[in-house]
């Protein structure tokens, strides 16, 4: 079988800093990582390949340096990596991104074989939209399975798949037809440590690099800023509240004095909370 996994290279959010004066992101020196949610999709794809045979192709759209993340995916055991990179893609929103990725996946189908499953993570940690996966599915007319927590029966001959997906208040068990797009929920598996063999292969492997034309994109007005219906007008840091916090000191009192003062300050500002807590304490005492 053939599986395509879409990944994204993102800044390690734990190390993002905002410039205190200009309110701009300080990108310099921030390390990049594979979007952590995508690793669950990649691992699931590798497991299916190990079980059923076939190939896993990883695909990303991004600047040339996104090759690092693809190479990383190869060390985990992916068979092939495709980098979609072109200045026409700059400024893409989720609609333009899903158009470019969907077109590239169609091209991958022609060159390397039609995938039975396209995987993505449930969302990225930098954009947090969860919109690109469904966007790709719609454009390729794939059935869409989001927030999948478990892949059950996969019948390649019969062309069907059963999955469990996280829904509001429970888990939906769904059966549908291949090919599908699956967005994988976090915590569903643990990414393997790549083998030495894969590490050596990844170091030497050629990453396929496609510009917009190579990927079969003819209509450039659907790419980048021009293909993006949404416009970011303003980026800003939020203001605090206008009235300043009341500070209660701790070190100059006994814990008892401090505790009583703090509880008093809370109840003075929120008398309704005191009533609630007393009610709760009564109920608690009744048991």
């Amino acid at each position, binding site marked *: 079988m053939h599986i395509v996994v879409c990944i994204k290279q993102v800044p390690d959010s734990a190390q993002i800093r905002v410039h205190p004066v200009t309110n701009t992101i300080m990108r310099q020196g921030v390390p990049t990582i594979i979007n952590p949610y995508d690793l669950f999709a990649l691992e699931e794809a590798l497991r299916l390949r190990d079980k059923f045979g076939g190939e896993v192709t990883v695909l990303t759209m991004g600047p040339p340096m996104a090759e690092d993340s693809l190479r990383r995916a190869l060390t985990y055991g992916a068979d092939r990596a495709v980098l979609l990179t072109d200045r026409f893609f700059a400024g893409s929103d989720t609609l333009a991104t899903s158009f470019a990725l969907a077109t590239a996946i169609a091209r991958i189908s022609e060159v390397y074989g039609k995938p039975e499953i396209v995987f993505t993570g449930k969302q990225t940690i930098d954009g947090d939209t969860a*919109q*690109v996966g469904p*966007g790709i599915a719609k454009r390729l007319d794939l059935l869409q399975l989001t927030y999948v927590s478990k892949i059950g029966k996969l019948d390649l001959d019969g062309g069907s798949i059963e999955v469990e997906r996280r829904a509001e208040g429970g888990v939906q068990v769904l059966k549908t037809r291949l090919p599908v797009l699956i967005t994988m929920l976090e915590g569903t598996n643990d990414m393997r440590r790549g083998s030495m063999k894969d590490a050596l292969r990844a170091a030497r492997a050629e990453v396929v690099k496609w510009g917009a034309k190579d990927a079969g994109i003819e209509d450039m007005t659907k790419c980048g800023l021009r293909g993006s219906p*949404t416009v970011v007008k303003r980026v800003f840091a939020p203001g605090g509240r206008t009235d300043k916090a009341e500070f209660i000191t701790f070190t100059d009192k006994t814990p008892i004095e401090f505790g009583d003062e703090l509880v008093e300050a809370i109840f003075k500002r929120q008398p309704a909370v005191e009533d609630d807590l007393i009610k709760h304490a009564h109920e608690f005492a009744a048991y």
Partner: protein
Amino acid sequence: MTQPPKPAAPAAAGRGNMKAELSDHFKQYKHVWVFIEQERGVVHPVSFELLGEARKLADKLGVEVAGVVCGAPGEATKMAAAEAFCYGADVVYLCEDPVLEHYRNEPYTKAMTDIVNTYKPEILLLGATTLGRDLAGSVATTLATGLTADCTELAVDADKSLGATRPTFGGSLLCTIYTLNYRPQMATIRPRVMAMPPRVDKPIGRIIEHRLDMAEDNIITKVLAFLPDRDSNKSNLAYADVVVAGGMGLGSPENFQLVKRLASTIGAEYGCSRPVVQKGWLTADRQIGQTGKTIRPKLYICAGISGAIQHRVGVEGADMIVAINTDKNAPIFEIAHVGIVADALKVLPALTEAFRRRLSPHNRDKLAS
């Protein structure tokens, strides 16, 4: 599956084009819609919260508020429609069909896109739930319009376009996003970000029924089962009145017991910041913030949380915030009502004991007499 007719796309917005230039086709798009999320006979509260927000936007635009209700024919779906009026809908688009009994992407996407293409709203809001996000992405792509996820604020501009504000760059800044040249302008909003409007008893108003032309045989995805969550697994963070949370400042997972102890003493729910989940100290359902739960408690006590934007947007709806942090410059103090610059490991036990004294039956009786 037949695709709904696509409206003629206007000339693409060029680089730096920040002004709305709506085509005549899109000028017909009017009114503010809310997708009413209803499953197994229960309307998700976020839908009512969005009706309240839609009312504010519609009043500014001078248009109507509509709810869109999809479901199997029967009482539950009709009740959802009736409730929508009580929370402020002027009109309800109702699509009843047996194929809509359980949420599935295919029939719901078709129902929504068909109704949008027929009745043409200018704004369409959905809850950012697993259902709403699954549906919104498909609907926006089919309609080739803009969609802004997880908005924390919505506003109507002087030129009557929707400004949707959301955290960006992993929650370190906020940005305001517009869909200037396409309609509808779509946005998802997380539960509890908008305040619940008061419910007012109202008779059922204008209902416009829409027939979904779709047979079960033509829908490929089948629901084999639904396994409801066990109650014991659920945290009720989003709708709790009092919440206590801890962050990395607590230093170790063992120290998190101090947060749990305070929470159980006062009957509160407990939660945490994102790094705590990433470290594996607590599970993701306890995470508070942009990518976790948004909360609106009467009282929020947080210890060892610095207050990154992605956390702040999840707690700003709290009536009162008590922040404990060793760093007096921590951003959490910008939104706190009461601040304590001290070690949470010492403050939390002192506060827990003080609440225990204050709330003990012995003390209360004394106070009452």
